[in-house]
């Protein structure tokens, strides 16, 4: 069969969702931000909620998310996206509101807003891109940077005694009564992308049903910040990030489902 006979409109099985604008993504080649953007937009397209969705862009590489997502968007100050989302959702309870944030944004400067928004149980979705580094500003250490990992502000590796421990904020928010669905996913393989999409769908369905806050961590590469090729970065991520940030659901429908939730790094249980 000739290729020309295959490439016909009636045979189309996958194309970029029209909810991504035609602007070229500003992300580095292989960066998970783009994949995650697409997954979210596909879910919004499938649910037919474009006209009722407001997204919040953070400060970080995804600050320009509004250039790529064809929905109404608000760019929030660094770390304050959950507060901005609260302001919108409280005044427009019937709308779908989500924030999209990096690890510096959500788990460093925005810790307080993250914790309190989750604890209040605002009926929104938070998408949290954990790439273990500050991508946008040139690769500084993030709260999520692994022990021993190098960054421009931990050039000899993260030293706990000196720079503190990596923070597993997702484990913390899973334990707050206001969260309904908390999960950790990735977008480095087709299977991972499909699972993430399921999670995003569930999160938006939760919002529709007004069940509380849904929180999706996406462990992602920052190949530029890590100074690796995209392929090598994904491999490094599997080998180093996933053991510390294990993928899977932590809380579903308001119930903790992860047995390991107590075994936070360095905390020994008796």
């Amino acid at each position: 069969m000739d290729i020309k006979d295959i490439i016909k409109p009636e045979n189309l099985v996958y194309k970029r969702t029209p909810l991504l604008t035609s602007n070229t993504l500003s992300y580095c080649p292989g960066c998970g931000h783009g994949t995650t953007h697409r997954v979210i937009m596909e879910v919004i397209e499938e649910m037919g909620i474009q006209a009722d969705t407001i997204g919040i862009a953070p400060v970080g590489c995804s600050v320009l998310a509004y250039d790529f997502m064809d929905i109404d968007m608000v760019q929030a100050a660094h770390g304050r996206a959950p507060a901005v989302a609260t302001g919108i959702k409280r005044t427009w309870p019937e709308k779908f509101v989500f924030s999209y944030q990096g690890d510096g944004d959500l788990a460093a400067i925005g810790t307080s807003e993250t914790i309190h928004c989750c604890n209040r149980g605002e009926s929104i979705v938070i998408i949290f891109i954990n790439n273990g580094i500050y991508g946008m500003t040139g690769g500084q250490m993030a709260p999520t940077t692994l022990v021993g990992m190098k960054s421009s502000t931990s050039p000899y590796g993260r030293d706990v005694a000196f720079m503190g421990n990596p923070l597993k904020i997702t484990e913390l928010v899973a334990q707050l009564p206001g969260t309904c669905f908390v999960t950790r996913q990735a977008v480095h393989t087709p299977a991972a992308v499909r699972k993430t999409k399921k999670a995003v769908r569930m999160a938006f369905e939760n919002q529709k049903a007004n069940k509380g806050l849904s929180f999706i961590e996406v462990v992602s590469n920052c190949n530029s910040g890590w100074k690796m090729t995209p392929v090598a970065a994904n491999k490094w991520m599997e080998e180093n990030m996933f053991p510390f940030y294990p993928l899977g659901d932590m809380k579903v429908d308001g119930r903790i489902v992860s047995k390991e939730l107590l075994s936070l790094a360095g905390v020994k249980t008796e």
Partner: protein
Amino acid sequence: MGELQLMKGNEAIAEAAIRAGCDAYFGYPITPQSEVLEYLMSEKAYERTGMVVLQAESELAAINMVYGAASTGKRVMTSSSSPGISLKQEGISYMAGAELPCLIVNVVRGGPGLGTIQPSQADYFQSTKGGGHGDYRLLVLAPASVQEMSDFVKLAFDLAFKYRNPALILSDGVIGQMMEKVELFEQQPRATTFDQSWVTTGKTPNRERNIITSLNLDPVLQEQHNHHLQEKYERMKAEVRFERYHCDDAEYLMVAYGSSARICQKAVLLAREKGIRVGLLRPITLYPFPSEPLLELSKQVKGILSVEMSAGQMIEDVRLAVHDTVKVEHYGRYGGVIHSPEEVLDAFMKKIVGG
């Protein structure tokens, strides 16, 4: 005549917010303005009009909740006092940059730092010149009575929406805590029609997506945006408001705003009892500052005393307005101490008449 009430300034703000059809209030407690949130809660604003009232976890969260709600075209406000307002500076700069209308109330207390909880006017520079980063301006209204605390809520919202710019009510512990007779305006409907062209309420098929942002990575675009803002600030000058008190025959002038203006009114009367023809110009808008009327008046007087509960901040705008053509001096107690009419008169005699 509307409903007459005896109310605290802070309560009047809250009641006026409800009546002005304010959609949302986000705030964090701090003396001397906690009554605003308390009143909204005890009056069940959320039942009376469906207004959203939320105690935020911090001032930072509060101003960013305001930012969010304002992005959708809602009439939204926050209130705080000096240290809390300092924490909001980044958010305020963002709102100015993104051209979001909103109302911020600062019931000023004595600083710097934790300072005192007593009244002060030492946040003038912060309010009028921009305590946050970048070139921006707020619309700044300075009420001098509980009545104005009520009226200016409505006015501030109107101006904020007219110019798509944050408005700030610069009050202080005196006006916030005192009770006076206030004539409340009629309840207004909440769901007002407003310009929907820029709001982020969900992209409908009939329009392009709306984006609220203060970012422009390209400096040329950012400069254009800044020019646009500057041009707007120029236009805002049309909103200048002030009150002349015994100015017609004045040989000398006091300039004072807010509670200090109240005190100066009395000082003017005391001076006139002594046969000295003093007038008082009370700026009602601090930005735009009533420079022109002041320049006009300066031509008729021999000296000007700028009276503030601060070490002297507004005096710079007074001096700039009158082009240093007439003697301008500052007087004011500060750090939480309120000057009395007699002290003002004394200073006036020494610095302006005698000096």
